[in-house]
Each structure stands twice: as C-alpha cells, then as structure tokens.
C-alpha cells in the first residue's frame, strides 16, 4: 500500500491555547499564508496542519524548494510573535508529523525505516508503551517486527492499529486530529468577543480602585494564592473551563467563546460547585450491584443508589441522564470517560464521571 506523501507544518508556539485566543488567530493567519502558496492545506489541530506534497513539489521544482518557499512566506508573520516553524515531508501522516518534529524530508518509500529507531512512546499510547518497554521493545521498529496476529491478541484493535502505523501500512494515527479545530477556526470569523482584561482592577473608577486596594491588602495578609479572580477557558470539563487564578497574576481573563459549540460540552445549567479534587462514588443498582459503563457507552445496570465517599447517608437515585461518553482530545492519551447526571430522592442533582471502572463526583447542582 502506498501512503500519501504529505507535507506537515508545525508551530509549537501556537499549539497550546491560551486564554486570549491569540494562538488560534495566529494559527489561522499561518493557514491563510500557506493557502496562498498551496491551496489544499488542512488544519489537524491547533498549531499543526498538513497538505499533499506531490503537486506543489512538482510545480515548484522539488520538495526542498516547497519547504524553502513556505518558510520564506511565513517568516515575517512568525517573526512578529517569535513563533518557531517546523516543516517535514514523509509518506503518511504519522511519519510526516515525526519528520516535521525533526525538520526532515524522508525520501519516498523510506518511512518505515525512518520510524524504526524512534521510541514507541511516539505512538502516544502510554499503556502500550509501558508494556512494550517491559518486553524490551523500545523502538517502533522492534514493535513493528512483532507478528500482527499476536499484537491483536495482546493489545486489541487499538494496538493493531498502532502496529500497522509503525509498519508504515497505515498512514494516520488515530487521535492526531482534533475534531474541533475547524469549528474553532471558523468561530474566529465571527466578531471578536470583548476582551475585558484591562478593566480588571484597572482603576477605571473609584469603585475599581477601592476593590483593588482591598484585594491587595488581603492578599498581603493571606498570601498570593488566597485571593483569586476568575478566568474562563475552553474545554470539556466545567473544571477545565473555568478557573480561579491568583489576583494580579499575568493570566488574563476573558469571557470569550462561551457560546462556541464544543463537542462533549454539557449544556447549561452547569454544576454550581465543581470539585477540584473529585470524590470517589459508589454507584449501584437498587439491589446493590455495581453500575458500570460499557465500551459502547451503555450502563450495565439501572442506577438505584449512590454513596459519596466520606459523606453522609446513601442517596436513592430516582432519575438519571446519560451516560455521555466524552470525546477526549488527542493529548488526553485516550483516557476514556463518560458523564452521568443523577438525581436523588431528596432532590439533589449530581454530576458523576466514569473513568477506568470507577465513578467520581465531579460537580454538584446546588
């Protein structure tokens, strides 16, 4: 099987989203610039994009020539923000990502040989990597040399997929794309949300100054981390999306993008308390059998009772909603999770999360 020859572009400085959305805008500008040269660029996730290499390299007279042109096109834009640019070309997306990390052009047909000495950890499957390490298989090459049938038996479909990627039989490693990236970039076309940061204690009015003075005084007495202000960010978890940061820290605050459609986002109302350290919960059916979530996102039994660790009496569950599997992002390393809302006979609403066979209390609807 012949894998598509891909050019990969990676800007590490734009790959982690900050609270201001600056990275997403910067990345959108990079894509626009690249598209002026090669129109088929596809964003994979924030800071990373790919494009078919064959046509442009034929047109511009070779693969190194294409990379040189793109570097030149992007230089002024990236110099402004001092963001680094990495470019690579290889067969298949996985090899292209590894090539870009090393600023390499891997000759056509050489991808398997190029991947062989790389660490199994590049597959971003920590469990698989740790088992391989214990078996003495530290490189992709040694993993690729295993028999496909045995890999499937030992590691399942996920492992078999990684195995084919390591062998260069499949080009794209599942999880490399962030499915929300196009939505996120599209939402940039909408009018920019008001960024409210400077007015925060900015001394714009007498009341602001008074509040700032009181906050600073208290912070001096209690310690910098004890007096906090809110910051909202995008993410799946209420806990991830809203954070309190120490007052006066350089983290800016924005109420931007709350309306943006996020896969896996739970609609309002959100839990009024979000546990910074989730508590273990025992969830059973009315007869006392544990309730679990299957790999297909179904409950194994009807929720009937729920006991929160270190907390009063067992709650009787009268209604529930979900489970909603959480589409994890690629850097979550395939942590599979699901959410469940439960309602007790006393009218208490709870948000539970299932992860690795355990239930956790994530939030309360108080």
């Amino acid at each position, binding site marked *: 099987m012949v894998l598509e020859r891909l050019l990969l572009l990676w800007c590490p400085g734009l790959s982690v989203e900050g609270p201001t959305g600056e990275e997403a805008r910067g990345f959108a500008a990079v894509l626009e610039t690249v598209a002026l040269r090669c129109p088929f660029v596809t964003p994979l996730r924030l800071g990373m994009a790919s494009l078919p290499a064959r046509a442009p390299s034929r047109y511009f007279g070779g693969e190194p020539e294409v990379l040189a042109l793109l570097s030149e096109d992007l230089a002024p834009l990236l110099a402004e923000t001092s963001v680094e640019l990495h470019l690579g070309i290889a067969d298949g997306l996985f090899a292209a990502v590894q090539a870009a990390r090393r600023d390499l052009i891997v000759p056509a047909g050489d991808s398997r040989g190029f991947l062989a000495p790389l660490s199994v950890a590049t597959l971003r499957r920590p469990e698989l990597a740790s088992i391989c390490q214990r078996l003495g298989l530290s490189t992709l090459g040694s993993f690729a040399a295993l028999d496909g049938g045995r890999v499937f038996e030992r590691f399942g479909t996920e492992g078999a997929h990684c195995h084919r990627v390591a062998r260069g039989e499949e080009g794209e490693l599942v999880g490399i794309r962030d499915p929300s990236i196009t939505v996120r970039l599209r939402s940039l076309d909408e009018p920019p949300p008001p960024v*409210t940061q400077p*007015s*925060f204690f900015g001394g714009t009015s007498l*009341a*602001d100054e*008074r*509040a*700032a*003075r*009181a*906050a600073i*005084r*208290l912070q001096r*007495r*209690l310690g910098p981390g*004890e*007096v*906090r*202000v*809110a910051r*909202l960010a995008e993410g799946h978890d*209420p806990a991830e*999306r*809203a*954070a*309190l940061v120490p*007052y006066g820290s350089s983290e800016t*605050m924005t*109420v931007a993008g*709350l309306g943006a459609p996020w896969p896996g986002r*739970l*609609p*309002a*109302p*959100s*839990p*009024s*308390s*979000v*546990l*910074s350290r989730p508590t273990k919960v025992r969830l059973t059916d009315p007869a006392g059998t544990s309730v679990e979530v299957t790999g297909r996102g179904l*409950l194994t039994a*009807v929720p009937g009772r729920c006991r929160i660790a270190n907390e009063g009496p067992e709650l009787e569950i009268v*209604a*529930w*909603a*979900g489970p909603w599997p959480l589409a994890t992002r690629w850097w979550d390393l395939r942590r599979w999770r699901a959410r469940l*809302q439960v*309602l*007790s006979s*006393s*009218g*208490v*609403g*709870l948000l539970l999360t299932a992860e690795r066979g355990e239930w956790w209390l994530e*939030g*309360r*609807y*108080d």
Partner: protein
Amino acid sequence: MSGSLATLLPGGALRRGTTTVVAGERGAGVTSLGISLLAEASARGHWCAAVGLDDPGVLSMVELGLDLRRVVFVPNPRGGWADAAGELLDGVEIVLLRPPARVPHAAARRLLARAKERRGIVIVLTDRAERWPIVPELSLRLTASSWQGVGFGDGRLTARRVEVLVESRHGDDRAVRSSVWLPSPAGVVAVAPPAS
C-alpha cells in the same frame, strides 16, 4: 434590586448594612440562589466578593448572570473568614459568605458591625439557618427543590424549581412562601407563580 428576584425580597432589594441568610440542605439550591442575589448586584456595577466557596462552579456563576469582572474570591479563608469578609467590605459592596459549620458569635458580630459601618451587604450561605448565630434582617430558607428534564437515562437536568420561605425581621413577621426557578426551562432565574 430591579432584577428577576425583586419580588422575592421585601422592599424589592437587599438593604445596605444588613445580613441575609440563605439556608438549605446541600443540593437544595443554596449556592445558586446566593449567586443569583450576587449577580443582580454585580450586573448593576457593584463589586462583589465570595468568601469560603471552596469549589465554586465558575461557569455556573456566568450562567446565573454574575459579572466575573467584579468578583473577588477568597475560597479557603479557614479560621480567618470573618476578618477576610470584613476587610473585603472596605472595597466591595456585597460579600457572599459560606462560613464553617461552627460560627463563633463574636466573629459574626464583628462582621455585622463592619457591614453596618461600611453600609455593605452580607449574604450568608448555610445548611441550617440556626447555624448563623445572629438573627438576620432577612432569611431565605430553601425547603424543597425539584428538577425537571431528567428521566430514566434520557433527557438532562434542565430546570429546577425551589420553594423558598422568606422571613424578614422588618416585615410583619410573617413568613412568605415563594417559588423560584433556579433556573427556568428558558435558563433564567425568576420568581415563579405559586404552585397550584
């Protein structure tokens, strides 16, 4: 207070220099009602503080209308909650406070004196009203909470109606029963017409 909770409150607003206790079991909606009261003040440009809310659902606060640009949080004041709240009253108009289970009378009295002096408003969140050792000007007891929208594995929590017993020290001493949407099916906090 011109907002959606005005009809819940005697005189239509929280009065400066006074204390309001919002009481109810965990899960009854105490936090949401407290935040909603704070939200109406913040929407009018007043500075607020939240003291002792150790795991605040910041997103929920936004949904309830709180303007986070004007809120200072002191999530874990520990034993210093009364002093922290009192000090903040120098800079903010309204303090939302969840004190520890045992409240020393002296600490509460000191805080109330400061609130009177600064003409600030204190809202105390507690599981039982008696835990606050001084009779407040206004108490809102959440006696029942019923969620809508969730079934047996389908739907989701969408709307909640809570029953509130409102008692005012300055009123005619009669407790008034009210229903409040926290939030309504349309996602807003509002006083509901009495349950039939």
